[in-house]
């Protein structure tokens, strides 16, 4: 966005495709910054147990005698309403939010790719039906429906009781819910490209040689779809993190004691009048993460899409 993107990058002799893509990508200063911020956040989130250990392992334990401590050397961001270290909680929350964001986005992208490939390659009535269905899902008031989905009793669905009672079930449930509605963008994108690809000579040639539909879709068409899928998935991670955080905030996503940036805000809401900073941190981290993913996706789009460069001349 900040770089003079309208000047095309000249291809140098003997340069590999990857190097060319890399040079196109690094011109997007904001995209590079986004990637840097995300790497730092991921690293920080991964080091959560380390930070906890440095504090003597007391970061996550309840200590009612040291509630709402101001920032100090032992607690860089202070403590929350139960005396837990805010920084450690934020880092553990980041693990969950990033994990859910990435997993759900990838699962949704896979589902969308399958639907889009089938619709685009087969065409005809199947295509018409699948795309109508996709349009229908897009048009629905999503969040209200997600709330019902999140409230479903898994026991009534026949999920074994011990699975339902396990601590991590809210994590998988939210990945499933978000993936269930998040596949539409990728499906439309893939379908559109597949539709035009199937008329191309190399696909025709493969058909003439008797390749099966499955082989043509996976071996011949799919690799050509890599860049739009990567871009759409990157952009959707931010969206997924927003969805997860709002569901968790409403008490329907990740359940305490597992921390996520969304449910940290639920707690903070009760103390928002006295301790506004408690509510500031998690939301700010969500904001930074989502905007970083959006910048990254925007940069990838320009680096990977040769037409985007073409168009900007």
């Amino acid at each position, binding site marked *: 966005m900040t770089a003079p993107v309208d000047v095309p990058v000249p291809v140098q002799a003997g340069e590999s495709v990857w190097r060319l893509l890399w040079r196109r990508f690094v011109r997007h200063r904001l995209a590079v910054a986004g990637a840097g911020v995300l790497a730092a956040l991921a690293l920080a989130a991964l080091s959560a147990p380390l930070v906890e250990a440095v504090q003597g392992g007391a970061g996550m334990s309840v200590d009612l005698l040291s509630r709402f401590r101001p920032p100090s050397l032992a607690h860089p961001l202070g403590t929350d309403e139960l005396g837990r270290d805010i920084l450690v909680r934020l880092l553990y929350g980041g693990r969950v939010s990033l994990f859910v964001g990435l997993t759900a986005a990838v699962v949704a992208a896979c589902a969308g790719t399958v639907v889009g490939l089938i619709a685009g390659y087969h065409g005809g009535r199947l295509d018409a039906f699948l795309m109508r269905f996709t349009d229908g899902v897009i048009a629905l008031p*999503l969040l*209200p429906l997600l709330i019902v989905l999140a409230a*479903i009793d898994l026991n*009534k669905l026949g999920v074994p009781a011990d699975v339902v009672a396990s601590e991590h079930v809210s994590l998988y449930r939210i990945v499933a819910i978000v993936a269930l509605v998040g596949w539409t963008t990728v499906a439309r994108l893939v379908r559109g490209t597949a539709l035009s690809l199937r008329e191309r000579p190399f696909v025709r040639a493969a058909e003439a040689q008797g390749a099966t539909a499955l082989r043509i879709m996976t071996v011949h068409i799919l690799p050509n779809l890599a860049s739009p899928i990567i871009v759409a998935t990157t952009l959707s991670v*931010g969206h997924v993190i927003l969805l997860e955080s709002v569901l968790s905030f409403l008490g329907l996503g990740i359940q305490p004691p597992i921390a996520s940036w969304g449910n940290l805000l639920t707690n903070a809401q009760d103390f928002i009048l006295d301790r*506004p900073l408690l509510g500031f941190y998690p939301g700010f981290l969500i904001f930074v993460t989502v905007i970083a993913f*959006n910048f990254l996706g925007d940069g990838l789009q320009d680096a990977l899409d040769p037409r985007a460069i073409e168009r900007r001349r």
Partner: protein
Amino acid sequence: MARFLVHRLWQSLLVLGLMSFVVYSLIGLMPGDPVDLMITADPKITSEDAARLRQLYGLDRPIVERYGNWLMAALQGDFGYSRLFAKPVMEALKPALANTVLLLGLSFTLALTIALPAGIIAATRPYSKLDYAINGFAFAGISVPSFWLGLMLIVVFAVLFGVLPAGGTGDLGQGGVWGTLKFLVLPVATLTIASVGGHTRYMRAAMIETLRQDYIRTARAIGADETRVVLHHALRNALIPVVTIIALDFGNLFSGALITETIFSWPGMGRLIFDSVMGNDFNLALVALLLATLLTLVGNFLADVAYVALDPRISFREVER
């Protein structure tokens, strides 16, 4: 025209019918049922009583049969009774619907009033400082979690400065126009900021694409001044994709309403849906969700009509296919 409208209406009805079954089934999968709620309210109910009550209310029947019964009653205008509000579902819905239409209408209009000019200005000066600034704000708007934004607005304007109420609607008619309006400022601002970024980026992209067309070059070549080129020749065509995308976003408006209304205790549809799902008010949740779906479908339908009206190249016949 008439054929197209009928075709689209028919389609929308089909989607609505399908959704009513899906939502009915989903609500059936929520924890507990009405008899469980009676048991919590009255510990004297024995399990035999419970079984008898379930049979009496048809709760032991298969879901398809129960849905059929609900549908028959609903088609005759009987949507049942709301548990939370202790009145017929429709009576509980009406004020909420009015509140949401007010909230969404205001922020939708405001968002478009800001986004369309901003997108056009950015597109006419691509890669200028101003363009980067507008783009930056747009990205920030897309990326900000709206529930957090709402909370922060409350902290700043209701707590720190104390100039605006943190939520609610106040007593209508108290304190004149401002008495009513001041309750709208923060929710409308939250909703507007959340949606203005996306609209701006759509408008900018569509405008840049349009300004690259040959007929724009022609218009400039024959000496039309830049304002006329942009506002007269380009805007009309650039609006076509924008209208479609914004219309597809209609469903998102309800998502935004749900978040904002919950934060600001605004008694609208979004909050009603949340409260009814959380409060096991099955009848109300079902109808409220379907009403939200219906309104979204109506919005999409209107967008289809606007789409064709904006672009004379598209005949209704083509869209039909």
